[in-house]
Protein backbone atom coordinates (compact mmCIF):
# COMPACT_ATOMS: atom_id res chain seq x y z
CA UNK A 1 0.00 0.00 0.00
CA UNK A 2 1.26 3.49 -0.79
CA UNK A 3 -0.18 6.72 0.55
CA UNK A 4 0.56 10.01 -1.18
CA UNK A 5 0.23 13.47 0.29
CA UNK A 6 0.43 16.41 -2.05
CA UNK A 7 -1.14 19.54 -3.47
CA UNK A 8 -2.94 18.99 -6.76
CA UNK A 9 -4.70 21.32 -9.17
CA UNK A 10 -8.48 21.41 -9.42
CA UNK A 11 -9.18 21.12 -13.14
CA UNK A 12 -12.88 21.82 -12.84
CA UNK A 13 -15.36 22.71 -10.14
CA UNK A 14 -19.15 22.66 -10.46
CA UNK A 15 -22.18 22.96 -8.24
CA UNK A 16 -24.47 19.95 -8.68
CA UNK A 17 -27.18 21.00 -6.25
CA UNK A 18 -27.60 23.34 -3.29
CA UNK A 19 -24.41 23.05 -1.20
CA UNK A 20 -23.18 20.07 -3.24
CA UNK A 21 -19.89 20.57 -5.07
CA UNK A 22 -18.15 18.57 -7.78
CA UNK A 23 -14.37 18.82 -8.21
CA UNK A 24 -12.06 17.08 -10.68
CA UNK A 25 -8.48 16.85 -9.42
CA UNK A 26 -5.42 16.14 -11.56
CA UNK A 27 -3.33 13.60 -9.60
CA UNK A 28 -2.08 10.86 -11.96
CA UNK A 29 -0.07 8.83 -9.43
CA UNK A 30 -3.12 8.62 -7.16
CA UNK A 31 -5.65 7.99 -9.94
CA UNK A 32 -3.38 5.18 -11.13
CA UNK A 33 -3.91 3.14 -7.96
CA UNK A 34 -7.22 4.45 -6.55
CA UNK A 35 -10.14 2.02 -6.30
CA UNK A 36 -13.91 2.43 -6.11
CA UNK A 37 -14.97 2.95 -2.50
CA UNK A 38 -11.72 4.58 -1.39
CA UNK A 39 -11.50 8.19 -0.24
CA UNK A 40 -9.23 11.24 -0.21
CA UNK A 41 -8.46 13.17 2.98
CA UNK A 42 -8.60 16.89 2.30
CA UNK A 43 -6.72 19.55 4.25
CA UNK A 44 -8.81 22.61 5.05
CA UNK A 45 -7.13 25.88 6.03
CA UNK A 46 -7.79 26.82 9.64
CA UNK A 47 -8.95 23.37 10.75
CA UNK A 48 -7.12 20.75 12.80
CA UNK A 49 -8.53 17.76 10.97
CA UNK A 50 -8.69 16.81 7.31
CA UNK A 51 -12.05 16.05 5.70
CA UNK A 52 -12.48 12.54 4.29
CA UNK A 53 -14.30 12.66 0.94
CA UNK A 54 -15.22 9.53 -1.01
CA UNK A 55 -13.95 9.15 -4.54
CA UNK A 56 -16.82 9.57 -7.02
CA UNK A 57 -15.04 8.59 -10.20
CA UNK A 58 -11.55 7.60 -11.37
CA UNK A 59 -10.13 8.35 -14.84
CA UNK A 60 -6.77 6.61 -15.28
CA UNK A 61 -6.33 7.93 -18.85
CA UNK A 62 -6.70 11.54 -17.80
CA UNK A 63 -5.03 10.91 -14.44
CA UNK A 64 -7.92 12.52 -12.58
CA UNK A 65 -10.09 11.86 -9.56
CA UNK A 66 -13.57 13.29 -9.17
CA UNK A 67 -15.01 14.08 -5.75
CA UNK A 68 -18.54 15.21 -4.96
CA UNK A 69 -19.19 16.54 -1.46
CA UNK A 70 -21.84 18.36 0.52
CA UNK A 71 -21.26 21.40 2.74
CA UNK A 72 -22.17 20.08 6.19
CA UNK A 73 -20.20 22.38 8.47
CA UNK A 74 -17.57 25.09 8.59
CA UNK A 75 -14.84 22.78 7.34
CA UNK A 76 -16.60 21.62 4.19
CA UNK A 77 -17.81 25.21 3.74
CA UNK A 78 -14.19 26.41 3.69
CA UNK A 79 -13.31 23.51 1.39
CA UNK A 80 -16.00 24.59 -1.05
CA UNK A 81 -14.21 27.93 -1.38
CA UNK A 82 -11.20 26.38 -3.10
CA UNK A 83 -11.49 27.56 -6.70
CA UNK A 84 -10.95 25.90 -10.07
CA UNK A 85 -7.27 26.23 -10.94
CA UNK A 86 -6.22 26.35 -7.31
CA UNK A 87 -4.40 23.59 -5.46
CA UNK A 88 -6.04 21.19 -3.03
CA UNK A 89 -3.97 19.34 -0.42
CA UNK A 90 -4.99 15.69 -0.21
CA UNK A 91 -3.76 12.43 1.28
CA UNK A 92 -4.86 9.52 -0.90
CA UNK A 93 -5.85 6.94 -1.86
CA UNK A 94 -7.11 5.97 1.60
CA UNK A 95 -9.38 3.14 2.66
CA UNK A 96 -7.89 -0.32 3.15
CA UNK A 97 -10.94 -1.91 1.59
CA UNK A 98 -12.95 -0.40 -1.25
CA UNK A 99 -15.83 -2.15 -3.02
CA UNK A 100 -14.76 -5.65 -4.14
CA UNK A 101 -16.16 -5.72 -7.67
CA UNK A 102 -13.91 -8.02 -9.65
CA UNK A 103 -15.45 -11.39 -8.86
CA UNK A 104 -18.97 -10.28 -9.77
CA UNK A 105 -20.81 -10.04 -13.09
CA UNK A 106 -24.05 -8.32 -12.15
CA UNK A 107 -24.82 -5.87 -9.37
CA UNK A 108 -27.44 -3.61 -7.85
CA UNK A 109 -25.77 -0.37 -6.78
CA UNK A 110 -27.56 1.73 -4.18
CA UNK A 111 -26.88 5.27 -3.08
CA UNK A 112 -28.78 7.36 -0.55
CA UNK A 113 -28.38 11.14 -0.59
CA UNK A 114 -24.76 12.23 -0.27
CA UNK A 115 -23.92 8.51 -0.08
CA UNK A 116 -24.56 8.37 -3.82
CA UNK A 117 -21.29 9.77 -5.26
CA UNK A 118 -19.00 6.81 -4.39
CA UNK A 119 -21.43 4.52 -6.23
CA UNK A 120 -20.60 6.08 -9.59
CA UNK A 121 -17.11 4.55 -9.61
CA UNK A 122 -18.80 1.20 -8.92
CA UNK A 123 -21.43 1.68 -11.65
CA UNK A 124 -18.66 2.47 -14.11
CA UNK A 125 -17.20 -0.98 -13.38
CA UNK A 126 -20.43 -2.83 -14.20
CA UNK A 127 -21.73 -0.82 -17.15
CA UNK A 128 -24.93 -2.43 -18.50
CA UNK A 129 -24.63 -5.25 -15.95
CA UNK A 130 -25.33 -2.78 -13.19
CA UNK A 131 -28.60 -1.42 -11.85
CA UNK A 132 -28.32 1.84 -9.96
CA UNK A 133 -30.93 2.85 -7.41
CA UNK A 134 -30.43 6.27 -5.87
CA UNK A 135 -32.65 8.14 -3.45
CA UNK A 136 -32.90 11.77 -2.41
CA UNK A 137 -35.08 14.03 -0.27
CA UNK A 138 -36.56 15.78 -3.27
CA UNK A 139 -35.94 16.82 -6.89
CA UNK A 140 -33.69 19.69 -5.83
CA UNK A 141 -31.28 17.27 -4.14
CA UNK A 142 -30.96 14.85 -7.05
CA UNK A 143 -27.43 14.41 -8.46
CA UNK A 144 -25.43 12.23 -10.87
CA UNK A 145 -28.36 10.63 -12.78
CA UNK A 146 -26.86 11.45 -16.18
CA UNK A 147 -23.51 10.04 -15.08
CA UNK A 148 -25.08 6.74 -14.05
CA UNK A 149 -26.88 6.51 -17.38
CA UNK A 150 -23.64 7.34 -19.20
CA UNK A 151 -22.02 4.47 -17.30
CA UNK A 152 -24.60 2.23 -19.01
CA UNK A 153 -26.51 1.26 -15.89
CA UNK A 154 -30.26 0.83 -15.58
CA UNK A 155 -30.91 3.93 -13.45
CA UNK A 156 -33.75 4.13 -10.95
CA UNK A 157 -34.40 7.39 -9.14
CA UNK A 158 -36.43 7.75 -5.95
CA UNK A 159 -37.36 10.78 -3.90
CA UNK A 160 -38.99 10.93 -0.48
CA UNK A 161 -41.64 13.34 -1.75
CA UNK A 162 -42.00 12.04 -5.28
CA UNK A 163 -40.94 15.36 -6.78
CA UNK A 164 -38.59 13.37 -9.05
CA UNK A 165 -38.56 9.70 -10.07
CA UNK A 166 -40.55 7.29 -7.98
CA UNK A 167 -42.00 8.38 -4.66
CA UNK A 168 -40.52 6.27 -1.88
CA UNK A 169 -37.32 4.83 -0.51
CA UNK A 170 -34.52 3.06 -2.33
CA UNK A 171 -35.40 -0.06 -0.38
CA UNK A 172 -38.85 -0.15 -2.01
CA UNK A 173 -37.18 0.15 -5.43
CA UNK A 174 -34.69 -2.55 -4.42
CA UNK A 175 -37.52 -5.00 -3.67
CA UNK A 176 -39.12 -4.19 -7.01
CA UNK A 177 -35.85 -4.83 -8.83
CA UNK A 178 -35.19 -8.09 -6.99
CA UNK A 179 -38.69 -9.26 -7.99
CA UNK A 180 -37.53 -9.25 -11.61
CA UNK A 181 -33.82 -9.99 -11.48
CA UNK A 182 -31.32 -11.49 -9.07
CA UNK A 183 -27.92 -9.75 -9.06
CA UNK A 184 -24.83 -11.48 -7.71
CA UNK A 185 -24.14 -8.66 -5.34
CA UNK A 186 -25.57 -5.48 -3.82
CA UNK A 187 -23.38 -2.47 -3.12
CA UNK A 188 -24.68 0.37 -0.94
CA UNK A 189 -23.72 3.66 0.64
CA UNK A 190 -26.01 5.99 2.56
CA UNK A 191 -27.59 6.64 5.98
CA UNK A 192 -27.39 3.87 8.59
CA UNK A 193 -31.16 3.31 8.52
CA UNK A 194 -31.00 2.71 4.79
CA UNK A 195 -27.99 0.39 5.05
CA UNK A 196 -29.63 -1.70 7.77
CA UNK A 197 -32.72 -2.23 5.62
CA UNK A 198 -30.65 -2.99 2.50
CA UNK A 199 -28.67 -5.57 4.45
CA UNK A 200 -31.90 -7.21 5.67
CA UNK A 201 -33.32 -7.40 2.17
CA UNK A 202 -30.05 -8.79 0.77
CA UNK A 203 -30.08 -11.43 3.48
CA UNK A 204 -33.72 -12.36 2.83
CA UNK A 205 -32.85 -12.82 -0.83
CA UNK A 206 -29.57 -14.52 -0.03
CA UNK A 207 -27.52 -12.03 -2.03
CA UNK A 208 -24.01 -10.90 -1.13
CA UNK A 209 -23.89 -7.32 0.07
CA UNK A 210 -21.16 -4.75 0.64
CA UNK A 211 -21.78 -1.42 2.42
CA UNK A 212 -19.64 1.67 2.80
CA UNK A 213 -19.67 3.11 6.32
CA UNK A 214 -18.92 6.56 7.71
CA UNK A 215 -17.43 7.66 11.03
CA UNK A 216 -15.61 10.76 12.32
CA UNK A 217 -11.94 10.29 11.47
CA UNK A 218 -8.60 11.49 12.80
CA UNK A 219 -5.48 10.38 10.93
CA UNK A 220 -7.39 8.64 8.14
CA UNK A 221 -4.81 5.85 7.86
CA UNK A 222 -5.62 3.60 10.81
CA UNK A 223 -3.13 4.78 13.39
CA UNK A 224 -5.25 6.88 15.76
CA UNK A 225 -8.14 4.42 16.08
CA UNK A 226 -10.86 7.04 16.46
CA UNK A 227 -13.11 5.99 13.55
CA UNK A 228 -14.19 2.77 15.23
CA UNK A 229 -17.22 0.79 14.11
CA UNK A 230 -18.53 -2.36 15.74
CA UNK A 231 -18.02 -5.46 13.60
CA UNK A 232 -17.88 -9.21 13.94
CA UNK A 233 -14.46 -10.68 13.20
CA UNK A 234 -13.95 -14.45 13.45
CA UNK A 235 -16.92 -14.82 15.71
CA UNK A 236 -16.29 -12.14 18.28
CA UNK A 237 -17.04 -8.44 18.39
CA UNK A 238 -14.25 -6.24 17.09
CA UNK A 239 -14.01 -2.46 16.79
CA UNK A 240 -12.80 -2.14 13.24
CA UNK A 241 -11.71 1.22 11.86
CA UNK A 242 -13.55 2.73 8.95
CA UNK A 243 -10.45 4.36 7.45
CA UNK A 244 -8.19 1.29 7.40
CA UNK A 245 -10.44 -1.80 7.72
CA UNK A 246 -13.07 -0.14 5.51
CA UNK A 247 -14.76 2.05 4.55
CA UNK A 248 -16.42 -0.89 2.77
CA UNK A 249 -17.49 -3.90 4.82
CA UNK A 250 -19.31 -7.13 4.00
CA UNK A 251 -22.88 -6.97 5.29
CA UNK A 252 -22.35 -9.91 7.66
CA UNK A 253 -19.48 -8.08 9.42
CA UNK A 254 -21.43 -4.99 10.39
CA UNK A 255 -23.00 -4.35 13.80
CA UNK A 256 -24.84 -1.04 13.94
CA UNK A 257 -24.69 0.98 17.17
CA UNK A 258 -27.98 1.90 18.77
CA UNK A 259 -27.78 5.62 18.01
Amino acid sequence: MKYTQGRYIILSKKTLAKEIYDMTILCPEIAEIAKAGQFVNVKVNGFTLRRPISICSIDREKGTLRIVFEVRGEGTKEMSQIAEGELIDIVAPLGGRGFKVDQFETAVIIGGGIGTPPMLAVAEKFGEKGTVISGFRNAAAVILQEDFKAAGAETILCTDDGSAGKKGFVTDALKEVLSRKKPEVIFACGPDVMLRRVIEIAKENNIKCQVSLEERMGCGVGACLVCACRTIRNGDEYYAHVCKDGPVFNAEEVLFDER
Partner: protein
Amino acid sequence: MSDKLSVNFAGVDFKNPVIPASGAFGYGREYENFYPLSNLGGISVKGTTGTKRNGNLPPRIAETPSGMLNSVGLQNPGIDHFIKIELPNLKTKDTVIIANIAGSTADEYREIAEKLENTDVDMIEVNISCPNVKAGGAAFGVTCEGAASITKIVRAATRKPVMMKLSPNVTNIAEIAKAVEAEGADAVSLINTLLGMKIDIKTRRPVLHNNVGGLSGPAVFPVAVRMVWQVSNAVKIPVCGMGGISRWQDVVEMMMAGAQVVQIGAAMFSDPFAPLKIIEGLENYVSENDLNNLQEIVGTVIPW
Protein backbone atom coordinates in the same frame (compact mmCIF):
# COMPACT_ATOMS: atom_id res chain seq x y z
CA MET B 1 21.50 14.04 8.42
CA SER B 2 24.13 15.33 10.86
CA ASP B 3 24.32 14.03 14.41
CA LYS B 4 23.78 17.52 15.79
CA LEU B 5 20.25 16.52 16.74
CA SER B 6 21.36 13.40 18.61
CA VAL B 7 20.64 13.08 22.30
CA ASN B 8 21.13 10.56 25.08
CA PHE B 9 17.80 10.73 26.89
CA ALA B 10 17.46 8.76 30.12
CA GLY B 11 20.36 6.58 29.00
CA VAL B 12 18.95 5.86 25.56
CA ASP B 13 20.56 7.22 22.38
CA PHE B 14 18.15 9.00 20.03
CA LYS B 15 19.34 10.15 16.59
CA ASN B 16 17.03 13.14 16.97
CA PRO B 17 14.55 14.35 19.61
CA VAL B 18 11.40 13.95 17.51
CA ILE B 19 9.09 11.10 18.58
CA PRO B 20 5.58 10.39 17.29
CA ALA B 21 3.33 10.41 20.36
CA SER B 22 1.61 7.37 21.78
CA GLY B 23 -1.89 7.00 20.38
CA ALA B 24 -1.20 8.98 17.23
CA PHE B 25 1.07 6.47 15.51
CA GLY B 26 -0.33 3.01 16.30
CA TYR B 27 2.54 0.54 16.11
CA GLY B 28 4.08 2.35 13.15
CA ARG B 29 2.72 0.17 10.34
CA GLU B 30 0.46 2.83 8.82
CA TYR B 31 3.00 5.64 8.58
CA GLU B 32 5.48 3.32 6.89
CA ASN B 33 3.29 3.86 3.85
CA PHE B 34 4.51 7.48 3.88
CA TYR B 35 8.20 7.25 4.83
CA PRO B 36 10.82 5.01 6.47
CA LEU B 37 10.47 5.03 10.25
CA SER B 38 14.27 5.20 10.54
CA ASN B 39 13.96 8.96 10.03
CA LEU B 40 12.36 9.29 13.45
CA GLY B 41 14.15 9.78 16.74
CA GLY B 42 11.93 7.17 18.28
CA ILE B 43 8.38 5.87 18.41
CA SER B 44 6.10 5.84 21.42
CA VAL B 45 3.70 3.04 20.56
CA LYS B 46 -0.04 2.89 21.13
CA GLY B 47 -0.88 2.57 24.83
CA THR B 48 -0.85 -1.15 25.54
CA THR B 49 -2.64 -2.96 28.37
CA GLY B 50 -2.38 -6.41 29.96
CA THR B 51 -5.10 -7.84 27.73
CA LYS B 52 -6.87 -6.81 24.52
CA ARG B 53 -9.22 -3.82 24.86
CA ASN B 54 -11.94 -2.62 22.52
CA GLY B 55 -11.91 0.97 23.73
CA ASN B 56 -14.88 3.32 23.89
CA LEU B 57 -17.92 3.50 21.64
CA PRO B 58 -17.71 5.95 18.73
CA PRO B 59 -17.75 8.83 18.03
CA ARG B 60 -14.28 9.09 19.51
CA ILE B 61 -13.14 12.40 18.04
CA ALA B 62 -14.36 15.98 17.87
CA GLU B 63 -12.72 19.00 16.31
CA THR B 64 -12.23 22.15 18.39
CA PRO B 65 -10.63 25.56 17.73
CA SER B 66 -6.94 24.80 16.95
CA GLY B 67 -7.38 21.42 18.58
CA MET B 68 -9.27 18.17 18.89
CA LEU B 69 -10.85 15.97 21.52
CA ASN B 70 -10.40 12.21 21.50
CA SER B 71 -11.85 9.40 23.59
CA VAL B 72 -10.36 6.25 22.08
CA GLY B 73 -10.07 4.65 25.50
CA LEU B 74 -6.93 2.55 25.04
CA GLN B 75 -8.15 0.23 22.31
CA ASN B 76 -5.22 -2.16 21.81
CA PRO B 77 -4.43 -5.85 21.14
CA GLY B 78 -2.79 -6.43 24.52
CA ILE B 79 0.83 -6.76 25.66
CA ASP B 80 1.34 -10.35 24.47
CA HIS B 81 0.34 -9.49 20.92
CA PHE B 82 2.60 -6.43 21.09
CA ILE B 83 5.60 -8.48 22.18
CA LYS B 84 4.95 -11.33 19.75
CA ILE B 85 3.79 -9.48 16.64
CA GLU B 86 4.46 -5.75 16.78
CA LEU B 87 7.77 -5.43 18.62
CA PRO B 88 9.75 -7.75 16.31
CA ASN B 89 8.57 -5.69 13.36
CA LEU B 90 9.34 -2.37 15.08
CA LYS B 91 12.82 -3.50 16.07
CA THR B 92 13.76 -3.78 12.39
CA LYS B 93 13.07 -0.07 11.86
CA ASP B 94 16.31 1.38 13.22
CA THR B 95 14.71 3.79 15.67
CA VAL B 96 14.18 3.88 19.43
CA ILE B 97 11.11 1.90 20.51
CA ILE B 98 9.24 3.18 23.56
CA ALA B 99 6.57 0.84 24.93
CA ASN B 100 3.67 2.91 26.26
CA ILE B 101 1.81 0.91 28.89
CA ALA B 102 -1.38 1.39 30.89
CA GLY B 103 -3.40 -0.62 33.37
CA SER B 104 -6.57 -0.61 35.41
CA THR B 105 -4.76 -1.86 38.50
CA ALA B 106 -1.28 -1.63 39.96
CA ASP B 107 -0.92 -5.35 39.32
CA GLU B 108 -1.67 -4.90 35.63
CA TYR B 109 1.09 -2.30 35.37
CA ARG B 110 3.48 -4.69 37.13
CA GLU B 111 2.63 -7.66 34.92
CA ILE B 112 3.11 -5.65 31.73
CA ALA B 113 6.45 -4.27 32.94
CA GLU B 114 7.61 -7.76 33.85
CA LYS B 115 6.66 -9.10 30.42
CA LEU B 116 8.61 -6.29 28.76
CA GLU B 117 11.70 -6.75 30.92
CA ASN B 118 13.20 -9.46 28.72
CA THR B 119 12.25 -7.90 25.38
CA ASP B 120 14.17 -5.54 23.07
CA VAL B 121 12.06 -2.55 24.05
CA ASP B 122 14.38 0.42 24.61
CA MET B 123 12.26 2.29 27.12
CA ILE B 124 8.94 2.12 28.94
CA GLU B 125 6.54 5.06 29.05
CA VAL B 126 3.99 4.57 31.80
CA ASN B 127 0.63 6.19 31.09
CA ILE B 128 -0.94 7.21 34.40
CA SER B 129 -2.93 9.99 32.80
CA CYS B 130 -5.33 8.57 30.23
CA PRO B 131 -8.49 10.68 30.63
CA ASN B 132 -10.63 8.22 28.69
CA VAL B 133 -10.84 5.10 30.82
CA LYS B 134 -12.98 4.49 33.89
CA ALA B 135 -10.60 2.44 36.01
CA GLY B 136 -6.93 3.30 36.47
CA GLY B 137 -5.59 5.76 33.94
CA ALA B 138 -5.82 9.29 35.24
CA ALA B 139 -7.01 7.98 38.60
CA PHE B 140 -3.39 7.15 39.43
CA GLY B 141 -1.97 10.22 37.75
CA VAL B 142 -3.76 12.98 39.62
CA THR B 143 -2.34 12.36 43.09
CA CYS B 144 1.27 12.19 44.24
CA GLU B 145 0.51 8.98 46.09
CA GLY B 146 -1.08 7.28 43.10
CA ALA B 147 1.66 8.37 40.73
CA ALA B 148 4.36 7.33 43.18
CA SER B 149 2.81 3.91 43.80
CA ILE B 150 2.69 2.98 40.11
CA THR B 151 6.23 4.29 39.61
CA LYS B 152 7.48 2.15 42.47
CA ILE B 153 5.81 -0.99 41.12
CA VAL B 154 7.08 -0.54 37.56
CA ARG B 155 10.52 0.46 38.81
CA ALA B 156 10.76 -2.76 40.80
CA ALA B 157 9.67 -4.81 37.79
CA THR B 158 12.20 -3.57 35.25
CA ARG B 159 15.71 -2.28 34.74
CA LYS B 160 14.71 -0.55 31.52
CA PRO B 161 14.46 3.25 31.54
CA VAL B 162 11.07 4.21 32.95
CA MET B 163 9.33 7.40 31.82
CA MET B 164 6.15 8.43 33.63
CA LYS B 165 3.56 10.23 31.47
CA LEU B 166 1.92 12.95 33.55
CA SER B 167 -1.57 14.41 33.50
CA PRO B 168 -2.07 18.18 33.10
CA ASN B 169 -5.44 17.98 34.84
CA VAL B 170 -3.89 18.63 38.25
CA THR B 171 -3.32 21.54 40.62
CA ASN B 172 0.43 21.08 40.85
CA ILE B 173 2.14 18.96 38.20
CA ALA B 174 5.61 19.76 39.59
CA GLU B 175 4.75 17.99 42.87
CA ILE B 176 3.65 14.90 40.99
CA ALA B 177 6.86 14.96 38.94
CA LYS B 178 8.86 15.11 42.18
CA ALA B 179 6.88 12.19 43.57
CA VAL B 180 7.67 9.93 40.59
CA GLU B 181 11.31 11.07 40.58
CA ALA B 182 11.58 10.07 44.24
CA GLU B 183 10.39 6.56 43.36
CA GLY B 184 13.08 6.11 40.74
CA ALA B 185 11.52 7.26 37.46
CA ASP B 186 14.25 7.91 34.86
CA ALA B 187 12.23 10.57 33.04
CA VAL B 188 8.83 12.22 32.81
CA SER B 189 6.77 13.01 29.70
CA LEU B 190 4.12 15.73 29.63
CA ILE B 191 1.52 16.81 28.95
CA ASN B 192 -1.12 14.19 28.34
CA THR B 193 -4.42 15.69 27.13
CA LEU B 194 -6.55 18.25 28.96
CA LEU B 195 -10.02 16.97 29.76
CA GLY B 196 -12.62 18.68 27.58
CA MET B 197 -16.15 18.36 26.23
CA LYS B 198 -18.09 19.32 23.13
CA ILE B 199 -21.86 19.31 22.78
CA ASP B 200 -23.82 19.09 19.52
CA ILE B 201 -26.41 21.82 20.08
CA LYS B 202 -28.76 20.29 17.49
CA THR B 203 -28.95 16.84 19.12
CA ARG B 204 -28.10 18.09 22.64
CA ARG B 205 -25.75 15.11 22.92
CA PRO B 206 -22.02 15.25 23.67
CA VAL B 207 -20.17 14.78 20.36
CA LEU B 208 -18.02 12.10 22.03
CA HIS B 209 -19.85 8.95 23.09
CA ASN B 210 -17.62 9.00 26.19
CA ASN B 211 -19.13 12.46 26.93
CA VAL B 212 -15.69 13.90 27.69
CA GLY B 213 -12.34 13.43 26.02
CA GLY B 214 -8.75 14.57 25.85
CA LEU B 215 -7.95 17.95 24.28
CA SER B 216 -4.79 18.15 22.17
CA GLY B 217 -3.42 20.25 19.34
CA PRO B 218 -1.96 23.79 19.12
CA ALA B 219 -4.69 25.07 21.45
CA VAL B 220 -2.99 23.45 24.45
CA PHE B 221 0.60 24.32 23.52
CA PRO B 222 0.93 27.30 25.91
CA VAL B 223 -0.23 25.11 28.82
CA ALA B 224 2.25 22.40 27.83
CA VAL B 225 5.15 24.87 27.66
CA ARG B 226 4.27 26.26 31.09
CA MET B 227 4.10 22.79 32.66
CA VAL B 228 7.32 21.61 30.99
CA TRP B 229 9.02 24.75 32.36
CA GLN B 230 7.64 24.18 35.88
CA VAL B 231 8.52 20.48 35.92
CA SER B 232 12.02 20.83 34.47
CA ASN B 233 12.74 23.37 37.20
CA ALA B 234 11.42 21.02 39.87
CA VAL B 235 13.15 17.73 39.02
CA LYS B 236 16.60 16.56 37.95
CA ILE B 237 15.43 13.74 35.68
CA PRO B 238 15.02 14.66 31.98
CA VAL B 239 11.74 15.81 30.49
CA CYS B 240 10.01 14.71 27.28
CA GLY B 241 7.77 17.58 26.18
CA MET B 242 4.54 17.25 24.25
CA GLY B 243 1.20 18.95 23.76
CA GLY B 244 0.27 20.84 20.61
CA ILE B 245 3.62 20.84 18.84
CA SER B 246 3.07 21.36 15.12
CA ARG B 247 6.17 23.23 13.86
CA TRP B 248 9.93 23.10 14.43
CA GLN B 249 9.63 26.45 16.19
CA ASP B 250 7.38 24.80 18.77
CA VAL B 251 10.06 22.18 19.43
CA VAL B 252 12.68 24.88 19.96
CA GLU B 253 10.32 26.67 22.35
CA MET B 254 9.55 23.45 24.24
CA MET B 255 13.26 22.65 24.51
CA MET B 256 14.11 26.14 25.75
CA ALA B 257 11.42 25.56 28.39
CA GLY B 258 13.37 22.47 29.50
CA ALA B 259 12.47 19.45 27.34
CA GLN B 260 15.29 17.27 25.98
CA VAL B 261 13.08 15.37 23.55
CA VAL B 262 9.52 15.89 22.29
CA GLN B 263 6.52 13.93 21.06
CA ILE B 264 4.31 14.91 18.12
CA GLY B 265 0.65 13.91 18.07
CA ALA B 266 -2.31 15.71 16.50
CA ALA B 267 -0.06 17.55 14.04
CA MET B 268 0.35 14.32 12.08
CA PHE B 269 -3.38 14.16 11.39
CA SER B 270 -3.26 17.27 9.24
CA ASP B 271 0.24 16.58 7.94
CA PRO B 272 1.54 13.00 8.10
CA PHE B 273 4.99 14.35 7.24
CA ALA B 274 5.04 16.76 10.21
CA PRO B 275 7.77 14.87 12.11
CA LEU B 276 10.10 14.89 9.08
CA LYS B 277 9.45 18.55 8.34
CA ILE B 278 10.15 19.37 11.98
CA ILE B 279 13.42 17.42 11.93
CA GLU B 280 14.47 19.27 8.79
CA GLY B 281 13.58 22.59 10.42
CA LEU B 282 15.66 21.68 13.47
CA GLU B 283 18.61 20.76 11.26
CA ASN B 284 18.46 24.23 9.70
CA TYR B 285 18.04 25.88 13.09
CA VAL B 286 21.16 24.15 14.40
CA SER B 287 23.30 25.21 11.46
CA GLU B 288 21.94 28.76 11.26
CA ASN B 289 22.67 29.20 14.96
CA ASP B 290 26.08 27.50 14.83
CA LEU B 291 25.18 24.97 17.51
CA ASN B 292 27.30 21.87 18.00
CA ASN B 293 24.22 20.05 19.22
CA LEU B 294 20.58 21.06 19.57
CA GLN B 295 20.71 20.05 23.25
CA GLU B 296 22.62 23.29 23.89
CA ILE B 297 19.29 25.15 23.92
CA VAL B 298 17.60 22.93 26.52
CA GLY B 299 16.35 24.99 29.46
CA THR B 300 17.95 28.19 28.17
CA VAL B 301 14.86 30.35 28.56
CA ILE B 302 15.75 33.41 30.64
CA PRO B 303 12.83 34.27 32.96
CA TRP B 304 12.19 37.93 33.76
